[in-house]
């Protein structure tokens, strides 16, 4: 093992004041050369005006976004560090910086050891290639040498449970098999440092368990695992330490149990209704601004309790300021594990004029499972992929259980992302013949 000489407990990663700035304009929309040339033509004027602004003190705050800020951290060998936080809190950016995929804007990280980036399942998999070929290709991309792959080939195949399909192009694989094969390769990566981003959110439960076990083994060998997840349970069980990021900064640090519970209590805001009265300061931009978002039972107000048996309404009001913008609004609802339960979009709805709009949709009773849910709202220009606004967590709501007459003695959770109540249809196809009923009675 390449790690045998390393002592558990020595510092292997040290981050010093890492910051990463994105210029939002560039992130959201790529400039074409024409725009860039136009910009260059105007550059002398801009240079003049920006020099003027600089004198006035302060750059234009709106165009830049710090995905990470002043992040300092030490990680020791053998640690499994869980990284939690809301969408957009900088978790993935942090892994990308450590993995060398993107450079920090300020600060530095000193890392000793080979790094394996598992930011996605099956990076570089090619659908036309066979399973066998993809094992080699993917292994090489993740940083394994050909000798290493050859040595572990059988183990990988066994772990993936797709030995029979090994010489079939992966485009004919089921999605489950594809994921298993991809993870099998990743799981056999033996770098001293593993960066793992949410890859466990896929695959069936049994396979997930197997993967978690494999990650645990890695830590046992004195290697380091950095594990980004929305799955609090996995962080609790797997990690030796956890941090929580918020707007690019570490806000919580400590044992996984304490970090996840504090995160769930305090940092996951619980509000079923938000109202922004002032159009000037409401979230949004020149095209659209949010006014109100609310989740309430169908015949009630937002302070009323929502249960599994009550239909409820997701409602939001917003200003469209640009009469030319043809926007599609998309609502995505996440459960506390970070799994998207459903997405509802206004596709196919008539185009709306500029002004204040209210939109809502009804979620039927007996559909959602109990738990805490986050509502995300984003809007994009119809027919494009250009997102103009995106609000994470515009509302949070809870769905409560009801004292059920239906479930008898069982009070535990109903497994499943959703909890629909289906109409059953039962037919007796044939009564039991008379000569058998006698034996039945005796047993």
């Amino acid at each position, binding site marked *: 093992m390449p790690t045998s000489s*390393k*002592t558990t407990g020595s510092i292997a990663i040290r981050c010093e004041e890492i910051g990463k700035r994105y210029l939002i304009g560039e992130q959201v929309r790529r400039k074409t050369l024409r725009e860039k040339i136009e910009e260059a033509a105007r550059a002398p004027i801009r240079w003049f005006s920006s020099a003027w602004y600089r004198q006035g003190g302060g750059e234009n705050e709106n165009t830049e976004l710090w995905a990470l800020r002043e992040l300092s951290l030490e990680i020791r060998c053998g640690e499994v560090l869980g990284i939690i936080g809301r969408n957009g809190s900088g978790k993935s950016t942090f892994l990308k910086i450590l993995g060398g995929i993107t450079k920090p804007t300020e600060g530095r990280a000193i890392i000793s050891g080979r790094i394996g980036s598992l930011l996605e399942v099956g*990076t570089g998999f090619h659908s036309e290639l066979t399973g066998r070929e993809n094992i080699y290709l993917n292994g090489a991309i993740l940083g394994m040498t050909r000798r290493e792959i050859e040595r572990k080939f059988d183990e990988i195949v066994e772990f993936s449970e797709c030995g029979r399909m090994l010489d079939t192009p992966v485009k004919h694989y089921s999605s489950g098999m594809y994921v298993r094969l991809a993870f099998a390769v990743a799981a056999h990566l033996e770098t001293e440092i593993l960066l793992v981003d949410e890859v466990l959110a896929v695959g069936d439960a049994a396979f997930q368990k197997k993967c978690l076990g494999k990650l645990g083994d890695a830590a046992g060998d004195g290697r380091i695992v950095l594990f980004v997840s929305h799955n609090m349970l996995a962080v609790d069980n797997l990690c030796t330490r956890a941090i929580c990021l918020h707007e690019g900064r570490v806000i919580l640090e400590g044992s996984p149990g304490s970090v996840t519970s504090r995160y769930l209590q305090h940092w996951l805001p619980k509000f079923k209704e938000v109202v922004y009265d002032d159009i000037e300061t409401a979230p949004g931009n020149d095209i659209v601004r949010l006014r109100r978002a609310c989740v309430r039972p169908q015949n009630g107000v937002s302070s009323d309790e929502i249960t599994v048996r009550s239909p409820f309404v997701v409602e939001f009001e917003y200003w469209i300021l640009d009469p030319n913008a043809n926007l599609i609004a998309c609502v995505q609802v996440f459960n506390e594990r970070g799994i998207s339960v459903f997405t509802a979009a206004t596709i196919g709805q008539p185009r709306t004029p500029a002004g204040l709009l209210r939109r809502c949709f009804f979620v039927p009773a007996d559909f959602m499972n109990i738990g805490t849910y986050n509502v995300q709202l984003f809007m994009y220009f119809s027919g494009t992929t250009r997102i103009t606004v995106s609000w994470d967590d515009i509302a949070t709501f809870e769905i409560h259980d009801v004292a059920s007459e239906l479930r008898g003695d069982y009070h535990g959770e109903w497994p499943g992302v959703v909890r629909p109540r289906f109409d059953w249809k039962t037919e007796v196809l044939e009564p039991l013949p008379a000569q058998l009923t006698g034996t039945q009675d005796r047993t």
Partner: protein
Amino acid sequence: MTSSVNLQGADSSAIVIVRSAEPSRGLGFSELWRYRELLYFLTWRDIKVRYKQTLLGILWAVLQPLAIALTLSLFLGRLAKMPSGGLPYPVFAYAGIVMWQLFSQALTESSNSLLANEQLITKVYFPRLIIPLSAVLASLLDFAISFVLIIFFLLYYRMVPTVAMVTLPLMVCLAVAIAMGVGLWLASLNVKYRDVRYTLGFLVQFWFLATPIAYPTSVVPGRWRIWYGLNPMVGVVEGFRWALCGIGHAPILLVAVSVCVSVVILVSGLYYFRRTEDTFADFI
């Protein structure tokens, strides 16, 4: 912060310092060498995937240049009586086309390579140079296959290879170097400006017409020839034909210009690529 990081047991080569944006120094050849297996696998993938799910498979590598050469022979050689510098026109055209296919394929594939591998760039670290490099290497296979047919052409027209043959590798290297150099420029620009995609097709067509493939350099009027010769592919194609057949004077001057221009293009391309590669993952 005075306490140093405890790095016992780790050899110094394993220590990585990720620091805030400063352009990478040097060309990173030692790092490239460490990742040579990945280069091999990506090239292998590009080759493997190219003719998947086609009926004729690798035959396409021969059919495409052959079809163009036949068309040119019919319309320009037979009907328009285009001179061909002492060579039978079909040999003349096919040799030019084979060289051109290598160049244009290497150029196109490398220019598009970063976008085509966006998934890799945003998820894994490795020297980015490997991506356009593997695209260029993969196009050498098609060249090798279509080159075999040249030998049949030569046999058919009873032409005997001369000592000039030894300069063949030089011409191939030059074509690859020019394609790589321009490809590096366009690939890095392509990350930020998708205009490259639209420019590329036009560029390749224009360049094709400005290179002596369907016609010999001798039809270009003398006073234009200096500017014409600045196109590095002129020297490459003329040199390639000369190396194959050994007929006429060696185009030494043209090849010398090609060498100079290709060095400039390649070095500047490498430089620009290295300077911008840190931001690829942010912009792509």
